[in-house]
């Protein structure tokens, strides 16, 4: 492995999945990189002045603007290349789901539509975890969050999570893939493939959050694995419009196995909320069939 680009000089939680994603992506290329970081867990925990974890140049300015900020860096690069700049650079943006699905969606969409040469990596921990676990458009149905909590009259989030992959795919970009911290070789293969392509590329990586999903820190990879094995988080890619499922569980495990490790879903196991589990399962089944149809996979 070449020189370390992201060191342990960060203050992310023990058991946090985010550094797994950052290292996997950065170690997928030997090219020089310039990184953009949206406000969020990664930024707060890895860029503290005067230190920080980054051994490659990064820029952070705000929460919702990392996509256009990197578009500006990339435009500057094009200008310098025209006048003879020799070094070849890759541009990678890291943002959480809040910055991607919610507050930065318009700006992100603009960058996808305009075709900037950027790899955009969403570390999706399914909510505003840096601010203590508020709901986002990525929060799954039934989860208990601080802004849509479970209570006497509520079972938590009543809506389904947003399908960001389909939103991204609708921009007809060269490459979008869903990956998981449970399968690093798959994640690295996707990052490597994406980094070798041109134009806007998107990786959506599920990042279990010990603080707000509330599970035992040693279970991070297991929780991520169960998300895949239940079909809650399918591993697939969309390359130039073609859908490919990368992993098909022989027998999909029921969603309860994923839910029961996490306290954010504990209330769903109360009899009165059992309908929410049934809805979650039904939604996974439906989405799985839809995805298979797109991939031309039967069975």
């Amino acid at each position, binding site marked *: 492995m070449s020189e370390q680009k992201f060191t342990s000089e960060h203050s992310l939680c023990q058991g946090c999945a985010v550094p797994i994603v950052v290292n996997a992506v950065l170690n997928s290329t030997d090219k020089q990189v*310039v990184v*953009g970081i949206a406000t969020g867990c990664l*930024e*707060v925990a890895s*860029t*503290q*002045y*005067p230190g*920080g974890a*980054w051994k490659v*140049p*990064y*820029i*952070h*300015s*705000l929460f*919702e*603007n990392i*996509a*256009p*900020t*990197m*578009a*500006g*860096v*990339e*435009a*500057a*690069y*094009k*200008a*310098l290349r*025209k*006048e003879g*700049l020799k070094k070849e*650079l890759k541009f990678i943006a890291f943002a959480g789901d809040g910055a991607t699905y919610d507050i930065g969606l*318009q*700006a992100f*969409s*603009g960058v996808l*539509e*305009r075709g900037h040469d950027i790899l955009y990596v969403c570390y999706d921990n399914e909510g505003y975890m840096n601010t203590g676990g508020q709901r986002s458009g990525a929060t799954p149905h039934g989860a208990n969050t601080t802004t849509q909590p479970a209570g006497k009259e509520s079972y938590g989030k009543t809506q389904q999570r947003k399908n960001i992959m389909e939103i991204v795919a609708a921009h007809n970009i060269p490459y979008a893939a869903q990956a998981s911290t449970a399968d690093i070789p798959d994640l690295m293969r996707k990052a490597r493939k994406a980094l070798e392509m041109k134009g806007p590329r998107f990786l959506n990586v599920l990042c279990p959050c010990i603080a707000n999903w509330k599970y035992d820190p040693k279970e991070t990879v297991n929780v991520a694995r169960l998300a895949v094995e239940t079909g809650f988080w399918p591993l697939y890619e969309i390359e130039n419009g073609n859908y490919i499922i990368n992993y098909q569980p022989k027998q999909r495990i029921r969603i309860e196995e994923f839910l029961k490790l996490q306290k954010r879903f504990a209330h769903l196991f109360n009899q009165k909320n059992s309908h929410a589990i049934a809805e979650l399962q039904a939604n996974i089944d439906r989405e799985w069939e839809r995805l298979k149809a797109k991939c031309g996979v039967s069975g």
Partner: protein
Amino acid sequence: MRQPLTGAEAVAEAMRQLKPDVVVAYPITPQTPIVEKYAEFVADGKVQTEMIPVESEHSALSAVVGASAAGVRAMTATSSVGLALMWEVVNAASGLGLPIVMNVVNRALSAPINIHCDHSDSMGCRDAGWVQIYCENGQEAYDFTILATKLAESCAVPVMVMQDGFITSHSVESVDFLDDHKVEAFAGKYRNPNGLLGDNPQSVGPFSLPNSFFEFKVRQEQRMEKAKSMFLSVGKELEKLTGRTYSFFEEYHLKDAEAIIVTMSSTAGTVKAAVDKMRQNGKKVGLLKLNLFRPFPYREIREALKHVKSIAVLDRSFSFGANAPLHGEITNSLCEIKNSVHGTAANIHGSVFGLGGRDMFEKDVENVFDALLAGKEPEKFIGAKA
């Protein structure tokens, strides 16, 4: 070389000559003709600029921040609610010490929605850490865009150059241009070796805790202080090329004036016409036209106004519930005068005019002067219906 051009076209010409590496465009009336004209230059191969037509003003300034942090020259332009939408990024740009130049074509803020001129947009970010230069006409907008670029890049401070929406941006005037090569020699090429793409790249925008944040902000304030003196020295250099002078403010029949108006932008032209007329009738009236609003030249204004008996400050925006922005600053400038003809701030009157594009006529200006000379309070809201 003289050409008949609108204020917006004059700025686009200045930008063409300054050769920014990246220009980011988003339409908003009345700024749009600047980026449209620039897009034509790109389409016709007159510039090599990378142009990004984005999906919002927030993204416009964000992309400019990215390009500037990368280490190259980057610009955009906006108006009104576009600037308001940018506000978050406006502060980030100055906090990061990025030498961005942004033309702002002044337009009223909503609500109610209105596309015409007042200064509520740029006054809304007067404390955001940008140099603010207000221009009387297309000539000043051209000259100050060139000056601003060198100033920004010498001090690591972003600069906003303001012109009045429609009144200046869409009116054709005779504008005197420098040759392309002269502008090129004056402004040079901007390459920051410590930019993200430089030979010695440094990261931009770390997370700062209470043990370092204050120092970042003190350094930002020091850069602004430097920008004040640099404004004059860069102005002197530009004067050698244009033959026009660039100071914090213009004094028009000020030295012997008994009553003066302090104002900014295109209205200064109307005031000059009124001063000329009233001077012919023996009335000792004058004008202080401010160009540099941030950093604010308190000391120099105090010096220039200390002899004046009566002052009306005309603002083109409110600061609701407080003295209007320029009025407040002029009062601040003069409050330290001891044993002068003022003694107190009582002779400094503040009036608001021209909101949402309401016209300000010569007669309105004469009324202000007449009131001052008669020892009376000028109209508080000039031209507003009762």
